[in-house]
Structures are given as C-alpha cells and as structure tokens.
C-alpha cells in the first residue's frame, strides 16, 4: 500500500503521522514537498497537522493553493482516499473538498489537551476498527477548530450522516461542557459525500503508541490497512 504525506512549509505533524502510518501499514509513506507539481501514485494521501504558511490570511488558505494541491484535489475527486488532520482538515475545507470551515475557538484560547470523541460512523475506510458510538481519547491542539457551516450545509452534513466524530463526555454524551471549541453540533470531523475523504481536528497520530500514553488513535490507521487496496 502506497501512502503519501504532503509536507507544507509550517507542517509539524508530518513525521509523527509518518511513524503512525508505517507502524500500522508496514511501509513508510512518501513525503511529498508541497512545491512539487506531480503526485506519486498513492492509495492514501495524508495532509498533516501544523501551521502551513504560518496560518497567514486564514488557516489552510495558502496551502490549499500550493502547487501539489492541484494533483491532490484531482486524485481526491477520482476517489483516492484523503485524510486531513488538524491543519490538514482546514486545508481540505479551503479546497472545497469538505464542507464548512474551521473558525477561531469560541474561547479564543489555543487548546492542547486530550478530549473524548464519539465515533459516529464505523462503516468507513477510516473507522472500521471502532465500535459504533465508541468513546475514544484523542488529543486536540488548535486555535482554530470551531467547526462552522451555514444552516443548509449543516443540515446536509447531518442528514447524509457525514459526521465522523463528535466531541463528547466520558459517557459519550454530547453537550456544551464537552465541546472544547464551540463547534456546531460538537462536530470534530466530517466526511465528504463518498466517505473517502475525512477531515478531523483531533490528532490520532499523537495517541497511537503505548509510549505516547494511549493507542486510541491507532484504530484509524489500522482501519486503513483493512480497506485501502
């Protein structure tokens, strides 16, 4: 299985996610510099976390127009699975591959801590190792993770079952107390209409090895092993 991790100026989770991918999938990903114009053939493309272009203009706005993204968007539209984590999620919304946008946390604070997530779908290539409604612990680390979409878009995302994960309490309850950043409907991650593109603010790669204090994020990478050919 061939995977590619796109490296932007300011990416800082590219190596972490490369380690997680290699541990779970058995092969190291290609690290692809954003300035390239041709993507290597890939069964999975990962847009890592970080602060591409220093978050200038809007988070992910500049990276969405990096030279490599023309190919990435084309491959994504052709069905190649894409995983965007944190800044990668922001970039995916800026390209229009995922609906909505990530705005400043409602507290205005940068938040870096573990949160509980409820798995909203487990019939996808990214989450088939989880149980439906399973509560997992995954860290967040962001300033702009407040998911927003207009009413029509939100209704469509909810109606089509495209919410991947929601911020929740320890028992899986969805409430304001367990919403770290003000995201509409506690949304932490969304799929595109085919379920082959996932963007999420939490960092599964940061809890995917016992040495890191937990392995709840590992299921996402192991799910890919099952389903991506």
């Amino acid at each position, binding site marked *: 299985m061939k995977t590619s991790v796109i490296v932007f100026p300011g990416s800082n989770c590219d190596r972490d996610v490369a380690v997680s991918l290699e541990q779970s999938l058995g092969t190291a990903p290609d690290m692809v510099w954003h300035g390239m114009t041709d993507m290597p053939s890939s069964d999975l493309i990962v847009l890592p976390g970080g602060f591409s272009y220093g978050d200038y*203009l*809007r988070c992910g*706005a500049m990276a969405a*127009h990096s030279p490599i993204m023309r190919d990435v968007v084309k491959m994504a539209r052709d069905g190649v699975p894409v995983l965007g984590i944190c800044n990668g999620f922001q970039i995916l*919304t*800026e390209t229009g591959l995922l609906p*909505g*946008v990530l*705005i*400043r*946390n*409602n*507290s*205005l604070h940068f938040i870096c801590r573990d949160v509980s997530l409820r798995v909203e779908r487990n019939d996808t290539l990214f989450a088939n190792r989880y149980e439906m409604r399973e509560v997992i612990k995954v860290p967040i680390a962001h300033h702009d993770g*407040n998911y*927003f*979409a*207009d009413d029509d*878009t939100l209704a469509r995302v909810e109606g089509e079952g495209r919410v991947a994960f929601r911020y929740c309490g320890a028992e899986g309850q969805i409430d304001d107390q367990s919403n770290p950043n*003000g995201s509409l409907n506690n949304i932490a991650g969304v799929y595109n209409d085919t379920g082959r593109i996932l963007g999420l603010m939490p960092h599964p790669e940061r809890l995917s090895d016992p040495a890191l204090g937990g392995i709840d994020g590992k299921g996402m990478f192991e799910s890919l092993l099952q389903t991506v050919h």
Partner: protein
Amino acid sequence: MKARIKVTLKTGVLDPQGKAIKNALGALGFEGVEDVRQGKFIEVELDQSDPEAAKTEVDRMCRDLLANMVIEDYDFEIEAA
C-alpha cells in the same frame, strides 16, 4: 492602480474576536458599544490600466483566495494611480 479590499464576516457568523474587542472596549470605559465585528483590509497594487479589467481580476482574487465565501463577504474599490 490600486485595489482596496474589505473582507468581512457574513451576518450570523460567530466572531469571537469581535466579541473580545467589544469586551475590551467596555473594560476601557467606552460605553454604548453594541457590537464589534472584525474583518480584514487588503491593498493590492495592480499593473493594469483598464479599470474594468482590474475589477474583474480583483473579483476573481477575492473569490479564489482573499475571502472564504463560506463565512466571508468582500467589497472593494479600484483607485487609479
């Protein structure tokens, strides 16, 4: 010529930064501040002499990069050099 572009949040989009500014103004003793919305102001120098062509180009710049149409509106004026 020069384009002066204003990018503002759409009505109804939460503006936590505007809210913080409003609170800070209140703390400084400015009374009667009912609401604050924060936006962006961008100046673009253009090597272009035709105002209509400049308008078309700046409009595209706004849609393609300078504004995120999901949450933002834009407005601009073209100023002859």
